[in-house]
Structure formats: structure tokens, C-alpha cells
């Protein structure tokens, strides 16, 4: 009853038109974090600002951002030069990629009698996904896992059938560690898989892996943990075997970054970094008024305030939800990009930063 009254009251107050609704869409992986931020931010602003984020996939996020139907997009694959050109051609001008969190992709498997923690290196994963290593009894896997009794099961490779940022991160790692993979397959949000069966979405891959003894797939770490699927540890560029974790993921991104943050942080030099990681970027226009989805100065200002909150205070929400914080260097780059954002020529980004003390 109280909630009903509260609802009625909030509807009445809302009629004063003080309230702002922000709309974003895109990648599935950061959705639990972004929606949790939305929940929290609504409380922080006393119910005044609602952030509606719909997870429709990285491809959809870029698409709707380009179509200017959302105020911000979200993607696990940064905007490439062709996409930036498309956006400029569609009248949007310059678009920024702002890292909000980090995603990591882990090899998931189903081996009766083998718990999590099987060790892989880049070459072995590439050989498995190329279809060259076809049985778990292969000496290449055995050499990495002395003392583990590997069942002589045939390997079933499982991959995503839809376009996915997770696939982009996974295949960019394989491309960097294996010349054969780079030559035959390469990396993208969807690729021509040499072998294996497809599953739709994280849940599709997880489902097939869980039902098929001998299967190996790849999933977001959060997803593997939530669904209790065994996942492997991966050797990084420095030769260290890294257990996937939030800190190991943040460490992987602690490398020199370009000012537009458009970089794949797979297989980085960071000695303790987990090698299969990548940013989830928020997409925004430099000239916020160029985006059809943003109608008023008030909306643009509230959007900037929310983004600033999301990359500062909002980061505290990340780790309890199994998401990685963005490193300090990334925060600085984000602030620099926000500072350049304008609304009808007015330096709104710089104003919002100044008001918050940045």
C-alpha cells in the first residue's frame, strides 16, 4: 500500500516536469553494472534522474547510436575508423569511446572429474579452436597440466553464433598469440569459425558446454561464476599463469593507452594481467546536440553528470557485482573527453566537470 502511495506521489511530483529520463542501449555484458548504476543513481538524485539502459548487444548499441535513437551507446568493440566515418556522415560529428568497465573472457569447459583451474596457453587455445587439437588426451594440454588426470574425450568446440563483443575480445587474443589463427581467421564480433558448434549469446554457449562432456567454449567470467561452470587459467605474455579475477583484469589494462582509448587490451605486457580482457565503452557524441535523441540542454547536462558519476563514485558498485574498476589512467582520459563535449557550442562538459571539482 505504501509503495502504491509512493508511486502515486511520485507520478504527481513528476508532473512538475523536473524529472529527466536518459536512454542508452548496447552491450549485454556490462548491462548488470549499468542498470545497477541506474538504480543507485536514481536514489542519489532523489528519483529525479532515471537511466533506462536496454541490453541489445554491442552491434545493436553501435547501430542505434549511429541512428541517433539513444543518448548513449555501449559496446565491447570500439568504433572503428569506418564506423566513425559513418557517424560523421550521418551528421553526428565526432564520437567518443569512454571506457566504463572491463570485461574478461574465460575458457569454459565440461570435463567430468576436472574442476576449474585447468591451465591453457595462447597457442593451445588457438590450436583447439582451429581444430588441430581434437582430444583432451593431447600431450600439448597434458604438458601444461602435470598431475591432472585428463579424460580421453574428444574436444567439442563451442562458439557464439551471434555478433558479440565477447567474441571480439576472444578472437583478438587468439589473433595476437597465434600467427596461424591471424592468418586463417582473424578477429571481429563474428568470424568464420574453422570448427565447432554455435550457441546464441553467453547463455547459449554456456548451455551447450554444460550439456556436452568434452566441450570447451568461452564466456564472460561473471557468467561462468554465476552459472557454476568450470573455467581455465591462462598464461599471459610474460609467461605467468593467471587465474581470472577482477584485479588481474584491471591490471591488464594498466598499460600505455591512446588518448581516444581505442585499444584492445588483450595479451598486454602487464606481468600480472589476465590476457583475455577488454573495455566496455560508452559511446557519446562530442556535440551532444548533434544527437537527435537529445532534445534539450537539461537532458545533455544530466547525461554528462551521470557519466561523470558512473566513472567516479559509480565505480564503487563494480566489484561487488563482479565487474572490474577502470584504472586511474582511464579515468583521466575519460575526463579529458568529457571536457571536450559541447551543447550547441556551449562547453557544457567543462562546466559539469568544474561544478564537480574536476
Amino acid at each position, binding site marked *: 500500500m505504501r*509503495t*502504491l502511495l509512493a*508511486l502515486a506521489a*511520485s*507520478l504527481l511530483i*513528476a*508532473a512538475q*516536469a523536473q*524529472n*529527466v*529520463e536518459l*536512454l542508452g*542501449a548496447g552491450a549485454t555484458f556490462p548491462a*548488470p553494472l549499468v*542498470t*545497477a*548504476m*541506474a*538504480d543507485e543513481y*536514481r536514489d542519489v538524485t532523489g528519483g529525479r534522474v*532515471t537511466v*533506462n*539502459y*536496454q*541490453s*541489445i548487444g554491442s552491434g545493436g548499441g553501435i547501430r542505434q547510436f549511429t*541512428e*541517433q*535513437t539513444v543518448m548513449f551507446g555501449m559496446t565491447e568493440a570500439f568504433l572503428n575508423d569506418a564506423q566513425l566515418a559513418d557517424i560523421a556522415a550521418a551528421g553526428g560529428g565526432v564520437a567518443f569511446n569512454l571506457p566504463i568497465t572491463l570485461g574478461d573472457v574465460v575458457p569454459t569447459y565440461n570435463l567430468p572429474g576436472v574442476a576449474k583451474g585447468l591451465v591453457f596457453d595462447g597457442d593451445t587455445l588457438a590450436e583447439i579452436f582451429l581444430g588441430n587439437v581434437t582430444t583432451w588426451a593431447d600431450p600439448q594440454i597434458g604438458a601444461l597440466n602435470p598431475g591432472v588426470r585428463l579424460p580421453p574425450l574428444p574436444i567439442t568446440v563451442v562458439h557464439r553464433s551471434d555478433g558479440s563483443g565477447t567474441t571480439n575480445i576472444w578472437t583478438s587474443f587468439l589473433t595476437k598469440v597465434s600467427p596461424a589463427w591471424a592468418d586463417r581467421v582473424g578477429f571481429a564480433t563474428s568470424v568464420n569459425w574453422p570448427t565447432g558448434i554455435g550457441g546464441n*549469446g*553467453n*547463455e547459449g554457449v*554456456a548451455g551447450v558446454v554444460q550439456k556436452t562432456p568434452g566441450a570447451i567454449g568461452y564466456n564472460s567470467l*561473471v*557468467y561462468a561464476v*554465476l*552459472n557454476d561452470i568450470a573455467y581455465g587459467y591462462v598464461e599471459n605474455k610474460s609467461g605467468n599463469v593467471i587465474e581470472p579475477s577482477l584485479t588481474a583484469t584491471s591490471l591488464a589494462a594498466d598499460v600505455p593507452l591512446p588518448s581516444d582509448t581505442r585499444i584492445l587490451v588483450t595479451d598486454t605486457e602487464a606481468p600480472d594481467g589476465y590476457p583475455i580482457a577488454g573495455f566496455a565503452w560508452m559511446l557519446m557524441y562530442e556535440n551532444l546536440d548533434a544527437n*537527435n*535523441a537529445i*532534445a534539450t540542454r537539461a537532458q545533455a547536462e544530466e547525461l554528462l553528470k551521470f557519466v561523470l558519476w558512473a566513472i567516479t563514485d559509480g565505480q564503487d558498485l563494480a566489484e561487488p*557485482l563482479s565487474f572490474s574498476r577502470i584504472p586511474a589512467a582511464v579515468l583521466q582520459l575519460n575526463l579529458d573527453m568529457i571536457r571536450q563535449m559541447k551543447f550547441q557550442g556551449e562547453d557544457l562538459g567543462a562546466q559539469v566537470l568544474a561544478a564537480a571539482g574536476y
Partner: protein
Amino acid sequence: MAVTAPATGSAAPPAAAPRGLATVTPEHLRRRYRRDRFMIGLLVLATAAVLVPLLIIVWYVVSNGISAVLTFDFYTQDLGSPARALQGRPTGLGHTILGTIVVDALALLIAVPIGVGAGIMLSEYPDHPLNPVLRILNDTLNGMPAILKGLLAFSLIVKPMGTFSGISGAVALAFVMLPIIARATEGVLRIIPWSIREAGLALGLPRWRVVLNTVLPAARVGVVTGILIAFARAAGEAAPLLFTSFGNNFFSSTPLRYLMGPVDTLPARLYSLAISPYKEWHAMGWGAAVILLVLVIVTFVGTRIVTRARHATDL
């Protein structure tokens, strides 16, 4: 086979035939009765084949979703983030139910006048030069995949407005309803005898008054049935809503925003809950399915009762 088979008294003899007569029935007549019973058996079997899957679906949905829909929060809270469900904080689909009612009602408001109008045009003015084109367009629209209707609404409304909205969702669903309503209306108006129209015309009524005051009331039950079928079909569609009403995890901030901003709808939310990695959201997805089922059934039964009652008093 013995001629004095005891089967005779049981099922099929015509009312006029006394019991004793069966024993002297010629062989070919008995064969007819047997065939008749066989055909009735087949029909019962066919009916069961239709009903059993329906009952299984209803039972399965209800048994999975009942725990979710029996909580108070389910109707009064909005969804928010998955963290709410995982941490046991209040979460629900109140905003989804509200959004579905708004979008579906508006879709009906758009589709019924146009659809019934098109049906009247096709049935009452069969010689009108526009009719062949209208019929082709109507059938094309009926056969068009629902996702394309969503795309149409996207380019007609979402793009110019610059944002996803309840209105665009309603228009997309209206595209789904329109051809069904038009076809059904045409069908039932056609079986109304011409003598009724002639009676009206003989009283000096103009043609449009004849249609509105005599033909349409006579066909009311049929027209309403057509509208209901169209409604039930559209209420379950997720595809046209994906890029029109789009979705929302929260109650809209003002009533107007349910029309002008992105809103949640049950079929679309059901899908996104179902593919999520959270058990708690799966349960809520089943709950959404139960509400959708109830919404359609209540509309069906309610409208039936109302039209039946009115019909009876009119007579």
C-alpha cells in the same frame, strides 16, 4: 459376427427407432452406424489433440510462474537491475504490466476504427474501384513478418521523433491487428442477408446509416470476435516492439512518458528475462508469461460476456 450384437442399444440409433428394431437392422445400416461412431471418435481425438497441448502449455506456464505472480512486489515495483533480484531487494514488473496495457489499448484504438472501416468497405461497397487494391494490400500486410511491421513503425515514428516510444509500439501492433480485423469484419458482414439492408433502404435510410445501424449491430458478435483474435495475436508479439517501444527497467516519470518515451511490454520483457543468466529473472519471466496469458483470457471472456449480454437484451 453374430447378428444379435448387443452394441445396438448404446450410441447411435435415431430417436425414432425403438430398441427392438436394431436387432433386425440390415447389415449395411449397421455399417453406417459403425462408420458414424468411428468418425465421431476421430473428431473427439482431433479436438483432444488441439486442447491437450494448450492445457499442457497453460499448466507448465502457471506452475513455473505462480510463485512470482503471488508476490505483492511483482505488481507494485519496477524491475531495475538484476542486483535487486539477486540481493532480494524489491523488484517487479509493475511498469511492464502498465506499459503493456497502455500500448495494447492504444493499438486497439488505432486498429479497430480503421480495420472495421476497411472491412465495411470491402463487404458493403464491393464494386468500389479501390477494393481490389485494398484487398491485395490487406493480404500483403497480413502475410508480412511482424518484425518488418516494427521496422516500418521505426522509420515512420521512431526516427523522426528521435526516440523510442509507446506510440510507435502501438502503431506497430496496430499494423499486426489491422488486416486481421479487416478480413474478419468483411467475412461476418457478408453473411448478413441482403434483405436486412433492403429493409433499411426501404425506410429511406442513406446507405451509411444502413451499415451503421442495421448491418453492423447484426454482425456485432462476429466483429468483436475478429477484434479479439487480432488482439490476442498482437498481445503476444515481441518482434514489432523490439525497436519501437524498446523497453524500460523503470516506471516512467510522467504518465505522458508512457506514450512519448520507451516503455516495457510483457512479450519483449519476457524474452529478455528468459535469456538472462539469473534464476530469479527466469522465475519473473514465467510470471510475465502468466500475466500475459491472464490478460488475453480475461479480455476474451470479459468481452464475450459483455457482447452476449447486450445481444440477448436487444432481442
